[in-house]
C-alpha cells in the first residue's frame, strides 16, 4: 500500500546534506576564514561620523560673515576602555580626575557600546600632544568638528548661533544624534537644512592598541559627508556695521529693506553681543551671562519688540481715507492746538491752520487725523461701526500688520491690531464708538508693530502699494532655490495713485522750507530726496520712543528704513538723523555732514538706567 516508503531515505539524505553544508560553511566562516574573524579583544569596527563643515555665510557683496575653524572632540567607547594612567591623561588634557570619572560615568549611562563625547572642543595644540599618546588609552579616539568663527562682530541676531541638539529634536528628527550641532536662531536656524550639509561615516578596523588599521571592506561601507551649502545673505555688511555703530549706547533697532525685492539690507537690534561669545566651550557660561543681563542683549528687538507705530501711522490712515473716499487732497480741517470732542481732548502742537492733506502729513497734525479716522469709522455707507471697523482693520493688515509677515526669521512676532471682540470685551457690543478708538488715529493705543513690520510698511509705501515679504537670504549655493513666497508681490488694499499724495507729504516733512513746520528736517540729505515720517510711541514707563520711517530716493526708492530709539523722545530728534546717516551711507558710501554722525555716536540715550523705568 505504501509503495513510496523508500522516498523517506531521499528526504533524510537531503536533511543530512543540508546539515553538512551548514556545518562546513559555519566552520569556514568561524574557524578557517580570518577575514571575518574579528575577535572581541583584538579587532573592532569603529564607525566614525564625518561631520561636514557648515556652509559659510556671505553678505550681499560677497563679504564673509561666518566661517569655520577646526576643533576636535575626544570620544569614548566605554566597553573598549582599559585601565589607564589617569594622572598623565589629565595632564595632557588639563583636566581634573573627578571630571574624567564623571565623564566616563556619563558615557556609560548613555551607552557602553556606542561612542559619546568625552571632552568637547579640544584645541589643535592639545590635540597634537594627545595624538602621540592616544595609543595608551584604548577606548578613546578623536573626532574632528568645526566651530563657527566671525571675521567681525556684526549681525549676531541676524546670523544666529549654533548649539547642541536637545532631546526633543533628536526624537523628532532622525538625522540628529546626541552631541550634534544645530542652528538655534537667525539664519543658522532658518536655513539649517542647507547649511548643515550631510553627515557621512567612515568604518575603520581598530586594533587592541586603539590604532586604526585601515578602512573596513575597502571603504565600501563608508559614506562621504556632503559639505553644507554656502549662504549669500541679503545683508550689506558695511551698512549693518554702520548701523550697529550708530546704535551704540542706545536701545532700539534699525531695519532697512530694499523695496524692489524685500531683501533686508540691515537689521540692527541693540544692545547686541559679540557672536563669538556663543561659540565653543564657554558658550553655556556666556549664554547664562547674556540671559541675566538687564538690557536683554539676546532679545531681538527688530523682530520681537512691539511698539505703537505713533504718528508714522497717520500715513496709513490717510491712505485708507483716500481709498474709502472720505478724504480728498483738498480736504481741510482746522486745528486749534488740540482735537476736542465733548470732554475728550487730543493735544496737537503749534502749526498753521487749516491744513490740507499733504500739509497734514508734513506737519503731522493730530487733529487732522482724528477727523480722518472718525470719518472712516463713521462712514454712512456702512450700517454700523462694526462693519467699518472691520474694513479699516483689513486695510491695516494688508500692510503686513497684526499678522506674521512669514519672513525667513522663525521668531518674528505678529504684532497687534485689535479686533471688534477686543472692544466688545471691554465696552460691550454696543458700548464703543469711533471716539472710543480715537488714539489709533495717531498710531497710539492698542496698536503694536515690530520694527520689521514698520520697515515693510515703508517699503510698501515706497513701492506705491505692494511689498515683497522681507527676507535675509539672497541665494543658497548648490541646486537650491529660495521659497517662492519671497518673489511674489503682496498687494495692499490701497490703489497706487493715492500713494503719491502721501509720499508728497513725506517729502515735504523732510525737505520742506525751514519755518513751514516740517517735522523731519533733521533727515535732509543735500543731493537725495528722502521721504520720511516721524513718530513718537507713547511709553507709559518713561520717556517716549523715537521713531522714524523713510525711503529714498523718492522716485526710484532703493532703501526703505525704520528706526526705533527707545526713550529717544520725539522722532525728529534721534531717529530721523540716524535714518538719514544710514541712507546716506548706503546710497553715497560717505557722510556729507560729519557733524551729524558725531551727534549720533556721542549720544547715550537712557542706556545705563533703562531698567529703572
Amino acid at each position, binding site marked *: 500500500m505504501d509503495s*513510496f516508503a523508500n*522516498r523517506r531515505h*531521499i528526504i533524510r539524505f537531503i536533511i543530512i546534506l*543540508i546539515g553538512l553544508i*551548514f556545518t562546513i560553511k559555519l566552520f569556514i*566562516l*568561524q*574557524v578557517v576564514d580570518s577575514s*571575518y574573524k574579528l575577535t572581541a579583544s583584538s579587532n573592532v569596527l569603529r564607525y566614525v561620523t564625518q561631520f561636514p563643515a557648515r556652509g559659510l555665510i556671505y553678505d550681499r557683496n560677497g563679504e564673509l560673515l561666518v566661517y569655520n575653524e577646526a576643533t576636535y572632540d575626544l570620544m569614548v567607547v566605554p566597553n573598549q576602555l582599559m585601565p589607564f594612567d589617569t594622572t598623565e591623561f589629565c595632564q595632557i588634557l588639563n583636566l581634573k580626575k573627578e571630571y574624567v570619572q564623571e565623564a566616563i560615568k556619563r558615557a556609560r549611562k548613555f551607552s557602553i*557600546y556606542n561612542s559619546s563625547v568625552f571632552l568637547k572642543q579640544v584645541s589643535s595644540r592639545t590635540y597634537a600632544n594627545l595624538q602621540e599618546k592616544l595609543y595608551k588609552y584604548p577606548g578613546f579616539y578623536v573626532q574632528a568638528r568645526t566651530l563657527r568663527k566671525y571675521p567681525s562682530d556684526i549681525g549676531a541676531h541676524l546670523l544666529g548661533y549654533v548649539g547642541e541638539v536637545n532631546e526633543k529634536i533628536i526624537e523628532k528628527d532622525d538625522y540628529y544624534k546626541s552631541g550634534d550641532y544645530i542652528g538655534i536662531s537667525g539664519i543658522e536656524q532658518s536655513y539649517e537644512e542647507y547649511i548643515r550639509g550631510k553627515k557621512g561615516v567612515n568604518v575603520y578596523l581598530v586594533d587592541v592598541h586603539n590604532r586604526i588599521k585601515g578602512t573596513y571592506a575597502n571603504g565600501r561601507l563608508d559614506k562621504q559627508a556632503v559639505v553644507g551649502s554656502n549662504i549669500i545673505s541679503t545683508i550689506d555688511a558695511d551698512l549693518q556695521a554702520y548701523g550697529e555703530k550708530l546704535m551704540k549706547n542706545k536701545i532700539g533697532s534699525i531695519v532697512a529693506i530694499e523695496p524692489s525685492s524685500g531683501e533686508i539690507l540691515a537689521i540692527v537690534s541693540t544692545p547686541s553681543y559679540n557672536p563669538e561669545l556663543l561659540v565653543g566651550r564657554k558658550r553655556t557660561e556666556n549664554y547664562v551671562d547674556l540671559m541675566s543681563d538687564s538690557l536683554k542683549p539676546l532679545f531681538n528687538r527688530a523682530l520681537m519688540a512691539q511698539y505703537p507705530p505713533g504718528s508714522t501711522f497717520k500715513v496709513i490712515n490717510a491712505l485708507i481715507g483716500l481709498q474709502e473716499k472720505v478724504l480728498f487732497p483738498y480736504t481741510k480741517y482746522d486745528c486749534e492746538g488740540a482735537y476736542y470732542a465733548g470732554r475728550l481732548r487730543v493735544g496737537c502742537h503749534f502749526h498753521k491752520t487749516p491744513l490740507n492733506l499733504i500739509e497734514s502729513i508734513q506737519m503731522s497734525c493730530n487733529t487732522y487725523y482724528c477727523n480722518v479716522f472718525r470719518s472712516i469709522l463713521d462712514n454712512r455707507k456702512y450700517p454700523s461701526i462694526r462693519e467699518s471697523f472691520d474694513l479699516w482693520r483689513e486695510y491695516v493688515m494688508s500692510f503686513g500688520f497684526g499678522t506674521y509677515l512669514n519672513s525667513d526669521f522663525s521668531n518674528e512676532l505678529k504684532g497687534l491690531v485689535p479686533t471688534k471682540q477686543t472692544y466688545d470685551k471691554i465696552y460691550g457690543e454696543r458700548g464703543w464708538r469711533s471716539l472710543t478708538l480715537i488714539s489709533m488715529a495717531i498710531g497710539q493705543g492698542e496698536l503694536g508693530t515690530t520694527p520689521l513690520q514698520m520697515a515693510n510698511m515703508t517699503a510698501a509705501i515706497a513701492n506705491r502699494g505692494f511689498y515683497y515679504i522681507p527676507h535675509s537670504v539672497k541665494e543658497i549655493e548648490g541646486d537650491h532655490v529660495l521659497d517662492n513666497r519671497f518673489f511674489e508681490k503682496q498687494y495692499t488694499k490701497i490703489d497706487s495713485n493715492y500713494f503719491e499724495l502721501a509720499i508728497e507729504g513725506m517729502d515735504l516733512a523732510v525737505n520742506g522750507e525751514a519755518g513751514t513746520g516740517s517735522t523731519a528736517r533733521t533727515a535732509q540729505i543735500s543731493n537725495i530726496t528722502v521721504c520720511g515720517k516721524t513718530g513718537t510711541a507713547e511709553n507709559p514707563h518713561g520717556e517716549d520712543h523715537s521713531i522714524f520711517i523713510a525711503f529714498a530716493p523718492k522716485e526710484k526708492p532703493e532703501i526703505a528704513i525704520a528706526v526705533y530709539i527707545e526713550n529717544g523722545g520725539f522722532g525728529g530728534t534721534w531717529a530721523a538723523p540716524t535714518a538719514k546717516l544710514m541712507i546716506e551711507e548706503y546710497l553715497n558710501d560717505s557722510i556729507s555732514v560729519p557733524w551729524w554722525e558725531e551727534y549720533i555716536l556721542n549720544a547715550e540715550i537712557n542706556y545705563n538706567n533703562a531698567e529703572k523705568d
Partner: protein
Amino acid sequence: MQRRINIWSSIDWLTVTIYLVLVFLGWINIYAAVYNEDHQSILDFSQRYGKQLIWISAALVIAFIVFVIDINFYSYFAYIFYGILIVVLIGVLIFGKEIHGARSWYELGNIRIQPAEFAKIATALALARYLTSYNLQINTVKSYVRIAAIILIPSVLILMQNDTGSALVYFAFIFVLYREGISESIILLGLFVIILFILALVIDTLIIILLSIGVVFIIFWFLNRKIKHTGIAFIVLLFASSAIYGLNEVLNAGLSYYYILLISLGISGLVYIILAISYKIKNVALLLIFLIGSIAFTYSVDYVFNNFLEQHQQKRINVVLGLESDPYGVEYNVNQSKIAIGSGGLTGKGFLRGTQTKFDFVPEQSTDFIFCTIGEEWGFLGTLFVVLLFIFFLYRLIGLAERQRSSFSRIYGYGVVSVFLFHIVINIGMTIGLVPVIGIPLPFFSYGGSSLWAFTILLFIFLRLDASRLELLQ
C-alpha cells in the same frame, strides 16, 4: 478497531525534550541580543526577553491543551480550520495593521497576532486530509489542481500581505507530496524551473538555450534508450545550424548566433516531427514542447523579475547571485551578520559578551537574525550544536512520521517536517549568506509570540497524533 492507551506514557518525550531545549536556548539568546547594562533583570517585562518569557509560558499551556484534545478532532475539522484561516487571511488584508510594509497583523489591544503563522498548521492538516481521501489517485490532473489549490491559496493571500517569506514556506509542502508519491517528473520539472530561473538571471540566454537542448537530448536518450535516434537528431540539428551559419556568412545577413540557433532549431523541429511520425517514435512532441517552454520561460524570467518582484526582492536575489553589490542595504545586513557569526571563532566570545550583535550592528538581532547572537557568543561549537540539534529534531520527526499506522498522521508529520525544514534552512542560510535574505523566523529561537505558538501547535498536534498511533489503524 481502537485501543485505549494512556497518552501521557506514549508521548514521545525525546521530542518534547528537544523542544524544551530549543525554546530555552532561544530565550537566552534573545536575552543576550537585547541585553544591556541598564536592564539586567530577567523578569523585566518591558524588554523583549521578559515578554518572550510570557509567550513561552503561554506556549506551554497551549501545548498542554493541544495534547488533551481528542485526536479525531484534528482530522474531522481539518477543512473547517483551513476554511476559517482562509477567511482570517482575507480579513487581515482588510482590517490588518501594517508594520514594516507588511499588512500581516491583527491588533487586539496590546497583542499582535500574525495569522500567516497559523495558516501553515491548517494547510498541513487540510493537505493530510485531502491526501487520505477515499480512493485518491494522486497523479491525476484533478488531484494536482486540488493539491495546488490547497497549498497556493493561503500562499497567495500571504503574498498579498506583502510577507514574501511566509508565502514561500508553502513550497516546502513539496516534500510531503514527494513522500506521498507524486510523480518524480513533476518534482524534476519544478527543480528544472527553479534552476532555469536562476540561470536566466546569471548567464547569457544563448548558453541557456544550448544547455536546454543538451538536457532534452539526454532525456530523449533516457526515455528511448536508442543511441541511433539521439545521434540522428543531433546530426540534424548540427546540419541545420551549419547550413544557416554558412548562409548567414555568404549572404552577409548579419544574424547573431542567437538567431542562427533559433532558426536552425525551428527547422530541425519540423524534421523531428516528420521523422517521429514516420518512424513512430514516442515522446518527441512532448520534448519539443518542453524545449520551447523552457526557452519561452527563460525569456519571461527577465520580464517577471523586473515587473513582478519588488525592488528589494530583486536586490536580495541579485546580491546572493553576486550580480549586484549593495553595501548599505541588503549586503550590509548580511555582511554584519557574517561578521558577527565569524567573529565568534571556535568557542565564541561568551554569554552576553558579544559586541557585534548588540545595538545597531546587526539588524533584527532578536527576530530574524537571532542566529548571529548564537554564532558570536557561542562560536562554532555553539552553532554546530544548534544545527545538529535541529537536524536531529527533523530526523526524529521523520522517524515518528514513518512509524504511524494512519496515513493522515504520517502525512501531517511530513507537513510538520517540511515547514520546520524550510524555516531552518532559509533562516540559518540567510544569516551565513547562503540564501537570499527572506524574513522568516528561526523556529523556537526568534522573538515573537505568534511564531512560537504556531510552531508549538504545529509540533504538538503531531505529537498528539503520535501518542495515539496505536489507536488508529488504517
